[in-house]
């Protein structure tokens, strides 16, 4: 194993030790500087806390993705070029997650964006007001949800505007 690979394996093992192996659902070392993990929602904050303490203080962004009956939220953390993406999955009818802005203040706008476009609620976030959608956008219409086509969205917004 190369030093880089060993380093990546150590990071994953360290995380499992800290939050419990049962809380890490999936691990994938795609290549150098690319780790992908899925963790249980309950373990998200503990995972981010641990990783931030390990030097993953930079959050590149948070990606939300509509998976059908659930929503995937991927936290893209960075440590000197090493990208570690941590995914959690929340049910579509109750998409609630704890905020991580108390650990990584730089996540503040990314959580707001995921809330705006996908409707995920980040409990404890200082201000989840609209970030990118216009003023008169209908409440509850989350454009990145798969159930809405572009034509649907345009029609629904025209009805309100």
């Amino acid at each position, binding site marked *: 194993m190369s030093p880089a690979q060993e380093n990546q394996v150590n990071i994953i093992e360290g995380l499992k030790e800290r939050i419990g192996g049962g809380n890490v659902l999936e691990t994938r070392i795609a290549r150098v500087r690319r780790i992908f993990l899925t963790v249980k929602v309950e373990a998200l904050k503990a995972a981010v806390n641990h990783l931030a303490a390990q030097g993953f203080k930079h959050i590149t962004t948070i990606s939300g993705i509509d998976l059908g009956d659930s929503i995937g939220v991927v936290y893209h953390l960075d440590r000197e070029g090493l990208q570690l993406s941590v995914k959690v999955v929340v049910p579509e009818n109750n998409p609630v997650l704890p905020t991580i802005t108390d650990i990584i203040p730089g996540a503040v706008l990314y959580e707001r964006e995921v809330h705006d476009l996908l409707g995920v609620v980040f409990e404890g976030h200082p201000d989840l007001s609209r970030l990118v*959608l*216009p*003023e*008169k956008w209908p409440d509850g219409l989350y*454009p990145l949800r798969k159930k809405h086509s*572009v034509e649907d*969205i*345009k029609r629904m*917004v025209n009805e309100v*505007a």
Partner: protein
Amino acid sequence: MGLVKWARVKSPWVLHINTGACNACDIEVLAALTPRFDIERFGVLLKGSPRHADVLVVTGTVTRQVKERLVRVYEQMPEPKFAVAVGGCACTAGVFHACYNVYGGVDKAIPVDAYIPGCPAKPEAILDGVVKLLAKLKGD
């Protein structure tokens, strides 16, 4: 030619507004001001207020957020006034046709007198469009 018309043709004052563009056209509009292209030799001056403008230069594809503002800026301009759509997405939706937050084209909001295509429109094309508009002004 009357004095007012002469002044307008000799020195059209222009207001530039971005309605949701990627900025490529905006920087080419700005480039048209710079020494190499020098739109000022046609008497064109970039102004800050609609009340002083003869020509409204519009870039961008008119997002939902901006449409009302565009219409109000146009209404604030004194007659006779002219609007120029600069760039492919200002003429029609262009590459943004599948985007949910765009109206797609400046003429969906205000009447347009000249369309300058290009993605982005080159400064030479912008100058050409402005000169053609001036010719139209003269002809009125």
